[in-house]
């Protein structure tokens, strides 16, 4: 018992001896665990919203639509499908038209489907807000309503008629705005049978397809739909089919490929799912990549801090051994310290991750499933804690083993890690102005730390640039209103903020240990005639140069990353944005390093040189 008390007391004293370091370590491990928590939580988040919605709405296996041309019997062709082999049920055909929608200053286009008051056996949209269609009252598909920013009770204009929004509903029959697609739209990977297929966009004199543009979906009463169709002079029909074997939907479609615009156009539920997943997938990729990036930065910070403490701890280990502490006791003290920090950090990380997850895991718009219902399991808690303890273990193990191996005398004498000599950098630095000379040499003394600092910045900038590229790409083809695809930018923004915060913590860690490490050589340079301004500029330079290199490296990596993650060709963000990122990065680093650098350069030289006497 007394032993445990002793270990605890020694551990607490050591932590309090270097409070700033302890806090930085806590921050770095917290960041790592928070990121890990987020990653784990979000992985399970996207599981079943489409399936849930499909069950709740009697989602169709195949959606067939056709354009009604004057004098054609397309309706008959649709109805023939209902009797085709493998079809187990159907709803419709429902009349629909395509028209301009104006709401709250946004103008876009939507498919307007006519529905009866009775519930359809297949694809009965589930009302999530307000009520079902009534005369003069429209129900908007959820993602569409969200994009327009309208709620039940608002007024919208369909074509030239004014409607009230009777409600908002979800459906499993179509992907979210703006990818709603009925004939004559091409869907997914399915094409028309080539020989007879007219060009998709080719206008036909006898048919009015309505205005071009992105498509939303809304429902009105059958009568209203026919009225609107008459006004826009464009009428089509939709029929929802239930197959005996839902998995055979693609095969069913292949068997009924449209041969012309007069024959029905079919879409499978797999196509719809693909449309939904595309969006979720994108979010997830963004999340996953960001959490990896965050983890890497956190790790770099932890390595720098632990390595920085190592030398100091080796000496303490020597001291403890010299007064009779066994290597076991010494290791126990170190372990107690790191475990305390790690447990605190994992608790904080779990809490932060838990709180931040709902912000990121909002279910794909247009589907059922509530935000905040994030799976947060014991296995997540266990894994995060285990990782934090693992970090503590490694941080203890290395110095403990080294200390156990080195003799007491050597450990006592091991005042500081000897600096590295990077001859070519020292050679180059002689030709530079004094602040650069000092800065390069400070950087060259600890090449590993410099590289870690550079890597941290590079990773952060890569993440930011990738996010910017993705964002630029999304915005390039943005539909009117709040395109759900641009909702991704919220995720990206949050991730960017986290990356920046973590990179800043990392930079502070590195600057801190650099300033401590360079105390003696800075004091010496001042004794030899360097001014405080030159010395603090030098210390800052030692961070800024690697940061600049890291930022440039990060630019290239970020664009590469965006290319890798996105199927579409990347959109390189405008030059001014890239320049702003690099400059901003340099300015932030300069700001972060200025304070420790100035503090260190103001400290009286005599005192430092005196205390550093052996």
């Amino acid at each position, binding site marked *: 018992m007394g032993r445990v008390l002793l270990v605890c007391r020694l551990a607490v004293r050591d932590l309090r001896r270097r409070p700033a370091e302890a806090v930085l370590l806590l921050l770095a491990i917290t960041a790592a665990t928070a990121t890990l928590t987020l990653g784990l939580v979000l992985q399970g988040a996207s599981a079943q919203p489409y399936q849930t919605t499909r069950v709740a709405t009697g989602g169709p296996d195949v959606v067939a639509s056709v354009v009604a041309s004057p004098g054609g019997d397309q309706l008959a062709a649709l109805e023939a499908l209902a009797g085709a082999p493998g079809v187990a049920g159907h709803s419709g055909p429902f009349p629909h038209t395509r028209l301009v929608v104006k709401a709250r200053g946004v103008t876009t286009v939507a498919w307007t489907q006519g529905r009866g008051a009775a519930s359809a056996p297949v694809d009965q949209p589930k009302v999530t807000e307000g009520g079902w269609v009534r005369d003069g009252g429209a129900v908007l598909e959820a993602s569409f309503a969200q994009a327009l920013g309208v709620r039940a009770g608002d007024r919208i204009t369909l074509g030239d008629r004014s409607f009230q929004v009777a409600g908002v509903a979800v459906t499993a029959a179509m992907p979210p705005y703006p990818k709603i697609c009925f004939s004559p739209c091409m869907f997914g990977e399915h094409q028309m049978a080539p020989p007879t297929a007219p060009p998709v966009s080719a206008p036909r004199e006898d048919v009015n397809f309505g205005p071009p543009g992105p498509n939303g979906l809304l429902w009105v009463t059958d009568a209203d739909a026919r009225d609107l169709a008459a006004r826009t002079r464009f009428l089509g029909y939709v029929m929802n089919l239930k197959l005996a074997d839902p998995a055979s939907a693609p095969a069913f479609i292949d068997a009924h490929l449209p041969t012309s615009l007069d024959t029905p156009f079919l879409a499978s539920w797999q196509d719809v799912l693909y449309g939904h997943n595309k969006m979720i997938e994108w979010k997830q990729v963004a999340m996953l990549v960001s959490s990896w990036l965050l983890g890497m930065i956190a790790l770099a910070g932890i390595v720098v801090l632990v390595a920085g403490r190592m030398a100091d701890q080796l000496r303490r280990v020597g001291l403890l051994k010299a007064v009779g502490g066994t290597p076991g006791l010494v290791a126990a003290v170190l372990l107690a310290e790191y475990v305390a920090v790690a447990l605190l950090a994992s608790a904080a990380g779990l809490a932060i991750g838990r709180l931040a997850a709902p912000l990121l895991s909002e279910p794909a718009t247009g589907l059922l499933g509530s935000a905040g219902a994030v799976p947060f399991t014991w296995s997540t808690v266990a894994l995060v804690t285990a990782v934090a303890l693992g970090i503590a273990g490694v941080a203890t193990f290395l110095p403990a083993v080294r200390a156990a191996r080195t003799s007491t005398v050597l450990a006592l004498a091991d005042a500081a890690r000897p600096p590295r000599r990077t001859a070519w950098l020292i050679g180059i630095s002689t030709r530079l102005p004094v602040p650069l000379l000092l800065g390069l040499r400070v950087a060259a003394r600890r090449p590993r730390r410099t590289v870690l600092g550079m890597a941290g910045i590079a990773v952060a900038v890569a993440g930011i640039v990738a996010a910017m590229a993705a964002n630029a790409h999304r915005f390039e083809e943005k539909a009117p209103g709040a395109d759900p695809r641009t909702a991704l930018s919220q995720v990206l923004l949050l991730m960017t903020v986290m990356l920046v915060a973590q990179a800043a913590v990392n930079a502070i860690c590195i600057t801190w240990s650099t300033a401590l490490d360079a105390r003696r050589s800075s004091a010496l340079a001042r004794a030899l005639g360097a*001014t405080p301004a030159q010395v603090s500029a030098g210390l800052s330079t030692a961070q800024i140069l690697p940061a600049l290199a890291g930022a440039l490296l990060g630019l290239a990596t970020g664009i590469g990353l965006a290319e890798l993650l996105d199927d579409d060709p990347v959109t390189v963000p405008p030059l001014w944005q890239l320049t702003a990122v690099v400059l901003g990065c340099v300015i932030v680093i300069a700001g972060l390093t200025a304070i420790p650098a100035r503090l260190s350069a103001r400290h009286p030289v005599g005192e430092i040189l005196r205390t550093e006497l052996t």
Partner: protein
Amino acid sequence: MDTVESLPIVSPILRASGLRMRYGQGSGIVHALDGVDLDVATGETVAVMGASGSGKSTLLHLLGGLERPSAGEVWLAGRRIDGLGETALARLRRTAIGFVFQAFHLMDELTAAENVELPALLAGQSPRAARRRAAELLERVGLSHRAEHLPSALSGGERQRVAIARALSNEPLVVLADEPTGNLDSAATLDVLRLLDSLRTAGQTLVIVTHDARVAATADRLISMRDGGFVEETRLTHGSTGRLGELAGLEG
């Protein structure tokens, strides 16, 4: 032979008057220096002796502008320096003062030559001129063959000679040495003493702080310190070997 006397002031290059230095406050206050007056003439070698904690390092730091006195004045070459700002002091150290420390304070990652050329680079000399000067100085301290060695590969005496060469880099008006032999064994002490003696002969103004009587014995003037004050001053004349035979145990 030896006389205890006060010196006529001959254009002192370095002068301190009423120098006081206090550390801490309240009951923990330490009077590291308690009213010290000192004049150092050009070309003179002054040794300051005293037990550990008597305020020697403090005096040296004040003379070299590494710290600022609590009270009193420091004049260097006719210019008052105790009130100067950090930057002005740094510029002054660059050109007028060379420091030598007990712990050598060489930069571990720099070779002997790179250490020696550093003050010249800080003073804005061209890399080539700085390197040439470093080579000259290393030659002078007898370490040309060690120019490319790191301090860790040098013996204590060699390190201190490199540090002395570094102190001479910008042809300082005054060299201030704090326990230059404090970390050295007898043989290395002799090497360093030889070097300091050659500086004295060449007319370099030197202030050496030490608790080693051997170092003090090579000075022109010897000042003893106790508890932050000067207690006595001795002028040592050079020349006669005196009754060395007797001291060596050769009996009459």
